[in-house]
């Protein structure tokens, strides 16, 4: 028979855990809304930039992207893994880490053997994980303290400089794409060299007779770094929104579990209490019978 006091203690501890998880859920919900707002605000810039690039490159060949679109023999690969700084968000972080490991083993086994895998992490969870197995190119956990374009852009600038200097021959981005509060998909995309279809654009681009100042080539050269910065910023924002979405879902589940647990505990508490009362009555009855007899 469960001890009354023990059960009571467990009920208190479970219900305080429930309070914490439901509070965390609320916090995540409001942070999620803010993260989504940031994505919304970034969108006009990103789409306009893409439109201009497509407009320009419809008439240019793909070699015009400066050094950023040239494919080289892949000896050194840089993985940019975007995670969160905090845990308690379900499989959010481990999914991105798992995908990175899969990519390394399937797509770049030879580079792994020759030590050509480099990792750049954004977020403490990925940093903690990858510093055990690889030497990190750098880690940027501080971007989440003040998440805006100006804090993310320098990372992209650094990656572009390293790529241009030949330190890496390919850069892959691994992050969680935000679909909605309940669904996040881990994806990887090639960051550098710039894929030709993003540069070459589609032929649907409107043919407006623009004046180009200074000239098309220079404008494209100027815009590609901008669009890369935006691509990284978008990935970080997406990952940030996904993190809060994932945390919200997992905290919701934790709260539900606590509720179930409390129900079961209450039942066994009441049973134990009832048994104790029955016992007492039996004893009194027995004592009275003994006196009468």
């Amino acid at each position, binding site marked *: 028979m469960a001890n009354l006091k023990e059960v009571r203690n467990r009920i208190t501890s479970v219900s305080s855990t429930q309070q914490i998880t439901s509070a965390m859920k609320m916090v995540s919900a409001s942070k999620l809304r803010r993260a989504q707002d940031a994505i919304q*605000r970034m969108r006009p810039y990103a789409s306009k930039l893409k439109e*201009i690039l497509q407009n320009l490159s419809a008439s240019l060949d793909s070699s015009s992207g400066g050094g950023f679109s040239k494919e080289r023999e892949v000896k050194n690969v840089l993985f940019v893994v975007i995670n969160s700084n905090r845990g308690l968000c379900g499989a959010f972080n481990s999914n991105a880490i798992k995908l990175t490991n899969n990519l390394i083993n399937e797509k770049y086994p030879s580079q792994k053997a020759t030590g050509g895998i480099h990792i750049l992490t954004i977020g403490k969870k990925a940093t903690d994980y990858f510093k055990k197995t690889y030497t990190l190119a750098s880690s940027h956990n501080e971007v989440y303290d003040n998440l805006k374009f100006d804090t993310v852009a320098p990372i992209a600038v650094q990656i572009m400089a390293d790529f241009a200097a030949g330190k890496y021959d390919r850069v892959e981005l691994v992050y969680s794409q935000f679909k909605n509060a309940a669904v996040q998909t881990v994806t990887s995309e090639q960051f550098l060299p710039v894929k030709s279809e993003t540069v070459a654009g589609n032929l649907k681009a409107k043919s407006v007779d623009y004046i180009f100042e*200074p000239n098309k080539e220079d404008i494209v050269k*100027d815009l590609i770094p901008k669009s890369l910065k935006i691509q990284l910023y978008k990935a970080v924002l997406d990952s940030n929104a996904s993190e809060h979405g994932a945390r919200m879902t997992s905290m919701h589940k934790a709260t539900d579990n606590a509720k179930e647990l409390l129900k079961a505990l209450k039942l066994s508490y009441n049973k134990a209490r009832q048994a104790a009362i029955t016992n007492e009555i039996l004893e009194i009855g027995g004592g009275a019978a003994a006196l009468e007899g």
Partner: protein
Amino acid sequence: MQLEIVTPDEKVFEGEVKLVQLPGTTGSFEILNNHAPIISTLKNGKIKITDSANATQYFEIKSGVVELQNNKIIILAETK
């Protein structure tokens, strides 16, 4: 003409203007009403705007690009 100044973080300006002065990569230039379509890159400097009430406003930018078409100007800027 209609002007929009957009940064990755927010929309800084939106409204009707009479004159826009821009720090183009090859030199400062102005856009007045009914300018021909243009795409130009911008360098570090100040954007000067005169709106329909003749009030001037300044925006500092680090770099950017401007697109003008049908009297609609969009400036994509990275601010400091």
